[in-house]
């Protein structure tokens, strides 16, 4: 019976993403609190002695199972592979702006694209392709590309970004890239053409 209690507690903690208080475990298993405390202690020892892949811990909010720290490298290899679905046009544009102008702020990206850049920038941040790089003098968060960005695009350094001459619709203009992008963006957004 009490061996069964250990197993049931293991099941319950396996299913709970958050730590569970011993009282809640006692309620769910219809066992007495001291019984539950004893079973938890035995389960913890058992997992440790048998050198299993799980560790039982008591945290502030209650008891929780976690994976063994020794498995972390393998876990990273299995679960932390970069997510690389094809980039949407909004993501490509946002990433291109960050790549060529870095560091660049979110309001600037929005001005250049003529539309809100919120969700595309958020996705790039979450995937770790773009990272924060301090704040502008006006307090806006600045972005730059990450090392992961270089890897995913097969670049050794930012120097290897493609030369823009090939893609520039009016290469005769000699102004700075940032100025020209902002001007084109404002023309797109407001229609106020110079």
């Amino acid at each position, binding site marked *: 019976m009490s061996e069964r209690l250990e197993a049931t507690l293991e099941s319950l903690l*396996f*299913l709970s*993403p958050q730590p569970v208080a011993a009282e809640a475990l006692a309620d769910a298993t219809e066992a007495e609190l001291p019984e539950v405390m004893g079973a938890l202690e035995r389960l913890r020892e058992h997992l440790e002695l048998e050198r299993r892949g799980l560790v039982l811990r008591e945290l502030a909010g209650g008891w929780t199972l*976690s*994976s063994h720290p020794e498995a*972390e490298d393998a*876990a*990273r*290899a299995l*679960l*932390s*592979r*970069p*997510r*690389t679905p094809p*980039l949407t*046009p909004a993501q*490509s*544009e946002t*990433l*291109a*702006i960050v*790549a*060529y102008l870095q560091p660049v702020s979110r309001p600037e990206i929005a001005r*250049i*694209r003529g539309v809100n850049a919120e969700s595309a920038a958020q996705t790039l941040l979450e*995937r*770790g392709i773009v990272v924060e790089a301090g704040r502008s003098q006006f307090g806006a968060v600045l972005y730059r590309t990450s*090392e*992961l960005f270089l*890897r*995913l*695009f*097969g*670049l050794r350094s930012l120097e*290897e*970004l*493609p*030369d*823009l001459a*090939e*893609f*520039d*619709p*009016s290469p005769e203009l000699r102004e700075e*890239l940032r100025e*020209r*992008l902002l*001007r*084109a*963006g404002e*023309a*797109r957004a407001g*229609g106020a*053409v110079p």
Partner: protein
Amino acid sequence: MRLVDLELDLDVFAGPFDLLLTLILREEIDLLEVDLADVVISYIDHLERRPDDSPVAPSGEAGRRARGQREELDLEAATEFLVLIAALLELKSRLMLPGEAPDELVDLDPGEAAEELLERLLDAHRYRAAAAALQERLAAEAGHRFRSAPLPPQLRRASVAHAAAVYDPRTLGAAIGTLLTLPRPVDLSHLTVPRVTVAERLSLLRTLLRRGSFSFEQAIERADRVTIAVTLFALLELYKSGEATWTQDESFGPIEIAATAWPSDVAGRVGSPA
């Protein structure tokens, strides 16, 4: 209820549903002449009538079991009816559509049609049995729950070591090229500058109002479309400020405009004897 018990009274046929099927399949009744909607209505009537017709059910556990059993039979009969009526509808619509060969138009091979209906019924039975087996499987699995938890924070960041070059840097150059393209200036040459202002039309309407009531036609005599629109706008302004109101007895009829009884610009007088 059994489907056998369904009695029909249609324009072209009176008798049990089963017999209708047989006669259709033997081409003794032309499917094109059977109003299938009436068959469906008869069936629904039959279903609704049934509880009153049935003998009083025994009470207690036995009664509950009997009722439960009957409901199960109903479900079976209902499935069968639905499958058959759907198949008949399809056959009928096929008969109504000209086929590739002209003689396909009215040709329904009774043997084939019967086989098709039978196959439909068998399929319905098969998939219902398969569905029951799936339900059982799902119930048997109920005790096997899976963990659903977010990854621990240290595993959530993508690891650089496992990154391969999957994206083409040229997409970035191309995106910048798109962003550098200036939009074509908006061509405004087809628009004419409005020559009439709301203020002008307001003062015209006020002048007309001072002379008494007038029709909208009078206010827009010989005016172009823009002027008509601006005049209407001015009239709405007058209505909003309480200076004028209008009546129109019928749609597209003449609009009569008159000053309101209590001009709002003399608010102090409102309520005092006129």
